[in-house]
């Protein structure tokens, strides 16, 4: 059974009014436990709307959304779903609730009614996992954006979540903060097998995923490994997206008749291929 299964999901905001807008249009998607899926798409393509369906913050207008077989439309199962799917949102300032870091991380477990010692243990372990144990007693407004996002991740981990859904967690961060957050997510995926759904506008971030889902106008436009997705440069451009710099360069060079391998993804790989190419032609 797939971990996340989205069937024929349609979501219409304000149906029956003049502001009616179809944000998701018959989306089908299935994500296995332990996958790292990046979701790409232009502004308004329905990424956030999709993310919010995964833990029942929004309910489908049509279709269904299952988490480990639990239906988000079923009110009784909603809390179990929310415990398993941790959410991290874009704005680091608007998702921390308590005035002290450790209290904030404890917020989820407290809501689940765990007993105090257990909460304490979970809070310590989660702060350790995101490398923020030092900042236990800090006030959130004294932290950097990247640190705040890591606290938000710790807050989800403390609920024993199996899956993190991150909705552009790095959009408001500086390069260093972006790096910190992505590293943390990667580490949690690798070391704990946590399933990751990572929405982003940064192609370089998406290329570290196992799989990329491209959204366009409320539909899944493409779905495959980063190499497969980025190989289709015209397809990406049609969805209004860029490809990583290295891929773009290779694509342009291949158009000029320079025979480079097609599946280059990173700048290191590009440098290597170019070196090999120059050696060969000399």
């Amino acid at each position, binding site marked *: 059974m797939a971990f996340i299964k989205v069937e024929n999901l349609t979501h219409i905001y304000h149906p029956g009014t003049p502001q009616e807008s179809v944000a998701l249009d018959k989306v089908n998607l299935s994500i296995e436990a332990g996958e790292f899926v990046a979701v790409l798409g232009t502004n308004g393509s329905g990424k956030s709307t999709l993310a919010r369906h995964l833990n029942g913050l929004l309910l489908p207008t049509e279709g269904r959304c299952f988490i480990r077989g639990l239906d988000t439309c079923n009110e009784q199962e909603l809390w179990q779903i929310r415990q398993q799917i941790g959410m991290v949102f874009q704005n680091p300032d608007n998702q921390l*609730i*308590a005035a002290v870091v450790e209290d904030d991380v404890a*917020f989820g477990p407290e809501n*689940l009614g765990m007993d*105090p010692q257990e909460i304490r243990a979970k809070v310590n372990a989660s702060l350790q996992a995101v490398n923020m144990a030092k900042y236990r007693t800090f006030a959130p407004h004294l932290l950097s954006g990247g640190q705040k996002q890591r606290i*938000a991740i710790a*807050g989800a981990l403390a609920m024993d979540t199996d899956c993190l859904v991150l909705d552009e967690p790095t959009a408001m961060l500086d390069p260093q903060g972006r790096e910190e957050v992505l590293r943390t997510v990667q580490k949690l995926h690798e070391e704990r097998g946590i399933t990751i759904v990572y929405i982003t506008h940064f192609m370089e971030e998406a290329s570290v995923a196992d799989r990329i889902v491209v959204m366009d106008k409320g539909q899944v436009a493409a779905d495959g490994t980063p190499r497969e997705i980025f190989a289709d440069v015209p397809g990406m451009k049609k969805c209004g997206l860029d490809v990583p710099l290295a891929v773009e360069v290779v694509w342009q060079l291949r158009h000029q008749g320079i025979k480079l391998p097609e599946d280059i993804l990173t700048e290191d790989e590009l440098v290597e291929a170019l070196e090999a190419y120059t050696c060969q032609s000399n």
Partner: protein
Amino acid sequence: MLSNITIGQYFPGNSILHRLDPRVKVLLLFFFLIEIFLFSNAVAYGIFSAVAFALMLLSGIPLGMLLRSLKPLWWIILFTFVIHLFSNPGTPIAKFWWFTLTWEGIRMGCFISLRLVLLILMSSLLTFTTSPLKLTDALESLLSPFRRFGLPAHELAMMMTIALRFIPTLIEETDKIMKAQQSRGADFTTGNVMKRLRNMVPILVPLFLSAFRRADELAMAMEARCYRGGVGRTQMKSLKTGGVDYLAIAGFVLLTVSLLGIKVLA
């Protein structure tokens, strides 16, 4: 510009007063203040002052800092004192114009001002030794019996927690908006009151808009973390009443009994 505003006046430390259960502190303070108003003989005031002084020393907070909390109310204390000097009938000492200074007036003035001073000092002793977060927890716990009568104890406490979390953020934001407006030539420092108020509008409008957006996103984040009100919720830092607390309560009972004794004997 606004960054030097701090919330509350918590002074971190590890004295006995800091370690007391905040609920016990709030309740004892409450009863202590009632007793200040109930017992008004000279001996009782002597005892109250001695207790207050002992607690101030015990708290480990610099005396000057504690006394400074009197400053904002200094004028009110003085005013009350002067009013009482002249408004009590009794043995006249001197007469200024229509006002008669009496012995009873001096006595009463001293009592009332001392009462005010004690009230302020003891209350600030609470806020100096208890973090706002602990005060919030104490509030929730103490008010929870009244939930039966429809008092939203948990919701009030949650509101305070969120306020404590967001006040610094909103202050930072105000500062940013003010600077942005000033860089475009806005002027918040000159002109009469009306003009200054009118100049505040371009700050308040974006601030409110952003506060509403924040509230919206925060509500969503809370829901995503399984928040569903106070029912079935536990607390990591549950408040515990321990040895020190019973000691404090015993001390307070002793104080009350001796005050009653003095009153009966006198």
